């Protein structure tokens, strides 16, 4: 299977999404003032990127359910805890 075909997989698509999300978070994060909502969105994008790396690069999408649940919980908890500290502490 040539490399080009390997790129046309879910992992390849996720990689394009990851690049787009990185560009979007930098565009949002730079010179946006002190908008709390923007920072929470930037943290949300980071958590979504972590999830994509886990599911499609680390192959957790087809991992045993327990491991996948633990990972998905980590992604949500990461965003929720960091955002909560940012907003309310």
């Amino acid at each position: 299977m040539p490399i080009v075909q390997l790129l046309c997989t879910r992992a390849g698509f996720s990689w394009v999404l990851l690049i787009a999300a990185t560009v979007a978070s930098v565009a949002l994060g730079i010179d946006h003032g002190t908008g709390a909502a923007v920072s929470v969105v930037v943290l949300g994008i980071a958590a979504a990127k972590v999830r994509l790396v886990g599911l499609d690069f680390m192959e957790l999408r087809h991992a045993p359910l327990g491991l996948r649940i633990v990972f998905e919980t980590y992604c949500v908890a990461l965003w929720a805890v960091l955002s909560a500290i940012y907003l309310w502490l």
Partner: protein
Amino acid sequence: MSERLADTAPPTRRLPGEQGTWVFLLGDMLVFGVFFATFMVERAREPTQFDTARRTLHTGIGFTNTLVLLLSSLLVVLAISALRHGLTKPARACTLGAMCCGMLFVALKAAEYWSMVAAGHGAGAGTFYLYYFSLTGLHLLHVVLGLAVLAFVLSQVRRPELSPTRVAVIEGAACFWHLVDLLWIVLFPLLYLVS
């Protein structure tokens, strides 16, 4: 080798790598999660100082390093896929490419450190900088360990035949490299972008 690898190719639900690897990876993610939260708590105590210090970081270098690690992760995915299809040459080329990306990350991070220290923003310049150097330094250690792990993968790719156990070890090694990418994905916005 392709037949052996095809036997271990993902069917429905399977564990990538070995169980022990995942205990280590999840533990590392948890420890870094605590570090991230601690940073945010410290940040809440001195928001103005942290934001002023954040603006002295080189966002361009941080952004470039994010792209470099994402490219390296894709190359590792391609290397594993190529290996599963018995394509040792592309697997070797992709692993080497990922290693080059890792080395570029280290070089860029070293340049950033040097530039910051030269500007008087060393680890002793304030709480933000202490956290910045501690968190990115710990991550940099992971990158260096990851490069050693990729060197191991490269040595295995050259083998004419791989046992299922060895394939699992290679998958675990690949997952460690993805962890390095995953941690940076959180560190970058946390340190450079959140105002």
